[in-house]
């Protein structure tokens, strides 16, 4: 037995242990989770198809800052009614910092995102000490020990008011963080009557440790065109809006896409190691500055402007370039092969995805590999200048999709790539059909935005 075998065995342990470790640990995913919670709400309206481009329907675009731009049609409605009016704000009494981050109202509930920094707490404390300190500062209704937690991460409670209704010391719907800092969402449900009575002027407050924020809302903003929301460019039926946020020495860009193309999914930029200059860049004040990546899907990145002494005029004349974006597509191709006794494989010369061919150079059974996997070398051939193929996946061998292991190897120096794959349920020498799927294409039409 090897360490790897034992690692595989540990993969089968009870779910409760896996969840326990995850629940206790999920703090840094939290901000993303919070955003995703809203994304899920609007997921049903974001994936549009080309038919909607063709249809002569009235265009109506909504912008939910930090979340998405969506287009509403007669068939789909955005469920978020109001978003917070104003920026993130913080209060402190020296012991605790309380930050109101964001808030959304749907037709049935309100979510308030907030952050608490407990300056008096850290990992060295125990629950008893934290409780004593909370009482000492008068916070005991808001900060309570969590006896089940392995670390002194207390449960936090906030009081929410909506009009005359008070929701005292309400437990968070979800929270994550460290002993010192927690980010929370407080959800108040069944607010249909409040919406009917107050509408967007719904008077909402949230209080934590006797610090209170009034929360003001604005309706989700609608626009007749995406250009009105922010700098927008469109190629290949994919509209991309680049929303800039300027700070003293930094420019952050968040991309919002509207997908009218046939592609299933739009990602952000793609860092193609074989191509030159695929990273986004800006030209500002005569300088060309490359982006630093913030999000894994390529939709958020920032530029370090320190030392450039940027003026408002410079900002207005800045030009943002996004040389490539990547898109995933749902299509499959099947390759019929014949494995010879000596391990060589008779194969067609190529497989064809919709926008790229894959010329197969060689295929063989790798007898040195414990799984006797099939190895394939190939070269990607573009069908048009502006679409490349950066990835595709092995879906099945002999139509069996379970137990597949794959690897892929690319090189900066050659256009020949290699991949290997096997299926635990299909001996490679008996393999006759290989199905490849989910190509991810790189679209080389550069998006250029004037950030004025």
């Amino acid at each position, binding site marked *: *037995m*090897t*360490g*790897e*075998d*034992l*690692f*595989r*065995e*540990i*993969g*089968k*342990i*009870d*779910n409760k*242990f*896996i*969840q*326990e*470790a*995850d629940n*206790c*640990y999920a703090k840094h*995913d939290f901000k993303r989770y919070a955003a*995703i*919670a809203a*994304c*899920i709400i609007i*997921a049903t309206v974001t*994936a549009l198809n080309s038919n909607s481009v063709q249809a002569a329907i009235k265009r109506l675009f909504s912008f939910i800052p930090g979340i998405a731009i969506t287009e509403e049609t007669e068939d789909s409605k955005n469920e978020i009614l109001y978003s917070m009016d104003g920026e993130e704000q913080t209060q402190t009494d020296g012991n605790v910092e309380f930050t109101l981050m964001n808030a959304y109202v749907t037709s049935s509930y309100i979510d308030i995102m907030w952050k608490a920094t407990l300056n008096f707490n*850290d*990992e060295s404390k125990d629950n008893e000490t934290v409780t004593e300190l909370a009482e000492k500062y008068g916070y005991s209704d808001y900060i309570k020990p969590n006896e089940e937690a*392995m*670390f002194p991460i207390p449960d936090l409670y906030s009081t929410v008011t909506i009009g005359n209704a008070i929701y005292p010391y309400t437990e968070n719907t979800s929270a994550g963080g*460290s*002993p010192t800092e927690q980010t929370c969402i407080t959800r108040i449900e069944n607010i249909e009557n409040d919406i009917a009575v107050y509408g967007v002027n719904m008077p909402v407050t949230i209080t934590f440790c006797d610090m209170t924020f009034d929360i003001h809302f604005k309706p989700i903003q609608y626009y007749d065109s995406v250009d009105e929301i922010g700098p927008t460019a469109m190629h290949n039926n994919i509209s991309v809006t680049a929303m800039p946020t300027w700070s003293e020495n930094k420019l952050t860009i968040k991309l919002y896409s509207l997908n009218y193309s046939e592609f*299933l*999914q739009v990602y952000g930029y793609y860092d193609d190691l074989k191509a030159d200059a695929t990273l986004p860049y800006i030209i500002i004040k005569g300088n060309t500055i490359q982006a630093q990546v913030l999000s*894994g*899907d390529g939709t958020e990145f920032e530029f370090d402007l320190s030392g450039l002494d940027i003026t408002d005029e410079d900002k207005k004349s800045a030009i943002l370039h996004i040389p490539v974006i990547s898109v*995933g597509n*749902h299509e499959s191709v099947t390759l019929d092969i014949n494995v010879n006794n000596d391990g060589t494989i008779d194969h067609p010369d190529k497989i064809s995805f919709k926008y790229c061919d894959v010329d197969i150079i060689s295929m063989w059974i790798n007898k*040195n*590999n*414990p799984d006797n996997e099939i190895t394939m070398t190939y070269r990607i051939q573009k069908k048009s200048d502006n679409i490349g193929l950066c*990835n595709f*996946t092995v*879906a*099945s061998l002999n139509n069996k*999709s*379970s137990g*597949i*292991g*794959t*690897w*892929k190897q*690319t090189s900066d120096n050659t256009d020949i790539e290699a991949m290997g794959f096997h299926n635990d349920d299909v001996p490679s020498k008996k393999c006759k059909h290989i199905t490849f*799927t*989910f190509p*991810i294409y790189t679209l080389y039409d550069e998006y250029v935005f004037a950030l004025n």
Partner: protein
Amino acid sequence: MNSEDKSIISLFFSRSERAITAVSNKYGLYCGKIAMNILQNEADKEETLNDTWLKAWNTIPPQNPNPLKTYLGMLTRTIAINRYSYYKAQKRNGSFDILLSELEDVIPSSRAEQEYEAGEIYKSINEFLKKTDKASRIIFVRRYYYADSIADIAKFFGFSESKVKSSLFRTRTKLRDFLEKEGIEI
């Protein structure tokens, strides 16, 4: 199961391709971390994620996993370790190799060369984890299920790295003794 996951599962059951978008959006970071911990390579991570979504597409239905998150994490872990198995002959991933060498501490040297009966040892590990204190158990699972680095575990929990290392060392030693007492042939 929460309502969002129910919605996602229903997308899978209705064979809506939006299911892929939804799981990718919601669980991409979670699964990506697991894949990255094992493979330490962005391109491999992305491939592993693609394989994970596809595997989910091909297995839901008939599977109706609850919780969805844990199921996706399990798929990612399996796909990543399979990919690692091939890579290890070509290109070592130093940090994951260290993790595996730690696990080899658990295996008595006299039995290291023996075949083991796959599919049984985890039951004893479950028994062991039940009897282990919560803090040690979580650290153990973070390290050897999620393949988190010691530095990450220390950072997230606000411990020193040496504290995490000593906790893991003690748990591994106890696990080895437990497995020996159980008569597990590993």
